[in-house]
């Protein structure tokens, strides 16, 4: 392995809840407090909390690292610490090489300046030299697709145009270390596709990249390794696919609390022997067992099953199964035991199952359980893809 480009060494960072003094009148009491209570760096004062707690990681030069986690986990704080906007209370954040941080697309644009002027301004702010900007100017404009509007003040731009121009500038800075915070969510679908391609080529050109995104598929394809961050701590670090699975698994834990009087409860994924299951093989079967409230007029409902690939949210299937056939059966008071069998004709990856009850007379969902079950499929034949089509290779004239 080569040299380390980005290093986080036992970093701690605290923030304050509530308001801080900000008029001169408050200065005297706060100075008094500061004198009497020596503020110890590693202790929390009232109203303070740790935004980053003892986080350490290293990124070798030329590698990309993804950072995922729920809102407020401290992802952006990590970028701000690395870029020098914030300084750690303890520990060290080091970046070796010319760094460019895109924390917000188009930060630093001035509404009264034209697109052309803002390109120069923003590129300089992001660390480009004048000659470089002159050289890349046409490329930036072409990428943004702004065209004839380049000499219009950006306050007249649509928000999509604004963001596109912002991303174009940021993408052409060409640093050694690039920090990117959720920039793929700008623009229309075509532009997002272009952004993703651009990110790929940046990674391939040997730039060290830290990439924060909620787009798990993008993380999975761009970054070999990822960090899952929650509550300011690293929950998991390692190969992206594995980290993403852990992340999705954690979301499931939070979500699957379904109230007692809910129409569906007690969901379990089991095998044919009724034993709990979280690993399947292509060709195998999964049994989703759950209880259904029996006092509903079931003929008005459809039971929905959606299976999605965890790494990118791709919907593998979306079924709506009518429930009218169960209407004749007895109605036990503690709920009707149901079993939903499905074939796991899937390729390797992590998947989540979603269940919902759809009431079609009112066109409403009665309940929707996003992470009803979580399983991974293991197999060794395929390279990539979703569906397992059981390919068989035969030789000779009468191959069937």
């Amino acid at each position, binding site marked *: 392995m080569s040299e380390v480009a980005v290093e986080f060494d036992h970093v701690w960072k605290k*923030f304050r809840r509530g308001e801080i*003094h900000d*008029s*001169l*009148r408050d200065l005297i009491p706060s100075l008094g407090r500061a004198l009497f209570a020596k503020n110890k760096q590693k202790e929390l004062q009232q109203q303070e909390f740790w935004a980053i707690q003892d986080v350490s990681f290293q990124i070798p030069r030329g590698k990309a690292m993804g950072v995922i986690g729920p809102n407020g986990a401290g992802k952006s704080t990590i970028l701000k610490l690395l870029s020098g*906007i*914030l300084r750690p209370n303890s520990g060290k954040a080091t970046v070796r090489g010319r760094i460019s941080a895109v924390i*917000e697309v188009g930060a630093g644009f001035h509404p009264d300046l034209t697109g052309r*002027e803002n390109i120069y301004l923003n590129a300089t702010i992001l660390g480009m030299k004048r000659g470089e900007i002159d050289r890349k100017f046409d490329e930036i404009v072409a990428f943004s697709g702004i065209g004839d509007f380049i000499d219009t003040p950006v306050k007249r731009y649509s928000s999509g145009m604004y963001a596109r121009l912002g991303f174009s500038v940021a993408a052409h800075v060409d640093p050694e270390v690039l920090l990117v915070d959720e920039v793929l969510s700008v623009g229309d679908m075509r532009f997002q596709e272009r952004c993703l391609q651009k990110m790929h080529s940046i990674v391939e050109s040997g730039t060290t990249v830290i990439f924060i995104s909620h787009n798990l598929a993008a993380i999975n394809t761009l970054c070999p390794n990822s960090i899952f961050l929650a509550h300011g701590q690293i929950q998991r670090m390692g190969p992206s696919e594995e980290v993403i699975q852990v992340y999705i698994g954690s979301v499931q834990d939070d979500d699957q609390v379904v109230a007692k009087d809910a129409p569906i409860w007690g969901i379990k994924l089991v095998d044919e022997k009724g034993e709990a299951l979280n690993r399947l093989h292509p060709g195998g079967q999964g049994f989703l067992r759950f209880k259904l409230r029996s006092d509903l007029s079931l003929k008005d409902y459809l039971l929905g099953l959606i299976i999605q690939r965890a790494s990118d949210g791709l919907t593998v299937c979306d079924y709506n199964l009518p429930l009218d056939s169960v209407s004749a059966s007895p109605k036990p008071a503690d709920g009707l035991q149901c079993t939903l069998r499905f074939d796991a004709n899937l390729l390797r990856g992590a998947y989540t199952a979603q269940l919902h009850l759809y009431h079609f007379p009112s066109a409403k969902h009665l309940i929707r359980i996003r992470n009803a079950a979580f399983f991974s499929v293991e197999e060794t034949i395929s390279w990539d893809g979703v569906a397992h089509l059981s390919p068989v290779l035969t030789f000779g004239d009468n191959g069937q």
Partner: protein
Amino acid sequence: MVKMVSELVQYRDLLYMLTWRDIKIRYKQSVMGFLWAILMPTLIVGSGILVRFAFSMNSGQPLSMADIASVSLKSLPWAFFVSATRFSTNSLLGNQNLVTKIYFPREVFPLAAVLASLFDFVIASGVVVAFLVYAKVGVSVQLLWLPLLLLLLIFFTAGLGMFLACANLFYRDVKYLVDVFVTFGIFFTPVFYDARMLGKWAPFVLINPIGTILEAMNDVVVFHRSPDFAWLAYAVGWAVLGFLGSWKIFSSAEASFAESI
């Protein structure tokens, strides 16, 4: 200190761009355009001449061309000082988005604000120079002091600007204090009058380093005599120590800008 300077040199493109932006924005979508640069000095000169006229009516001595030349000469650096101080005080808060989103040395903000005001100063000084030529104040070797005096003015203002920008970030009311001080500051500074008119009380207005610098400019340009060396040394002390001290305070507070703003 060496590190701070070299970092600033590294970001000189940025300083240039931000200065350019500040100038550009001021003149965009404005009725008066570049006349803005001349408006404030003109108003100050006008009121100065009126005050001087009142003095002369009172004392019985006619208003001389030299008096008018003094007032116009001193109004210009004062206008620069006022606009640069106001503008740089607000420079960090006005760029909140950049302070919290992108890293570069934050000194660039107040310095760009001072440089943008300097641009106005240069435009307006064209007018004043033309007037001084018309008023036949003449030239002498003493004019060689002028570049030094201008540097003192710029460094003192830049130092004050950095300090106030920093203070305003932590305490929002600093901006209003600055407004009040620069509005009434003109009465405590020898702009409309000369320090010598106060007789033995002259040091009272010369303690203010801007007053010292303005008087020195008046000495070398209008009266063609060398400035008072003791007071000059005093002004140099303020400019140099003030600038370095403010920079030091600024850069040690810089770490907490993004979270305190």
